[in-house]
């Protein structure tokens, strides 16, 4: 069964764009939230979520199954996805 992939990203971040492209290129289905496009309470709520996975609140924060990867670390992402 494929891993569920969820990512916290910024719409302006080069590494986030590269990560999204990597997922697309490899046919991986993923959910993402561009945190910089949120406002007010929504933004704070999502930032609290990000902090649970990555206390530094940096982007992209990638969750693949139970694995958390901070940054577009291609080798780690491939390993977590098993590709």
């Amino acid at each position, binding site marked *: 069964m494929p891993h569920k992939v969820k990512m916290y990203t910024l719409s302006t*971040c*080069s*590494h986030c764009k590269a990560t999204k492209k990597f997922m697309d290129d490899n046919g991986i289905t993923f959910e993402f939230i561009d945190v910089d496009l949120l406002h007010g309470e929504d933004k704070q709520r999502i930032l609290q979520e990000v902090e649970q996975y990555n206390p530094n609140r940096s982007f992209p924060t990638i969750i693949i199954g139970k694995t958390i990867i901070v940054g577009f670390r291609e080798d780690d992402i491939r390993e977590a996805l098993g590709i």
Partner: protein
Amino acid sequence: MTPAELYDIMKKIQEPKGYFFNKDKDWTLSILSDLLVNKERYGYMSCPCRLASGSREKDADILCPCRYRTDDVREYGSCYCNLYVSSEWNEGVIKHQYVPERRPKDKMNF
């Protein structure tokens, strides 16, 4: 201003200081384009790879070029975004590795 115009302006200022744009010009122009998005959105060119607070004072350390660029280029040959790099990084003399976030955690709490 267009990303290409920003490229020309910054190149003249930064290259004499030893900071070169990533030779992958698509990558570089994309980041410069996002810097202009941030200028429009926040009123200043904060690092597009980081979440801006919207306060110029709080984001002073991440106005591009950010305060962490010197140490990151010295240690990794590249800034956090892979926008500004050393000539050795561009020439592939040093290994390209992911540049970890150097900004202190407390600056990202807002």
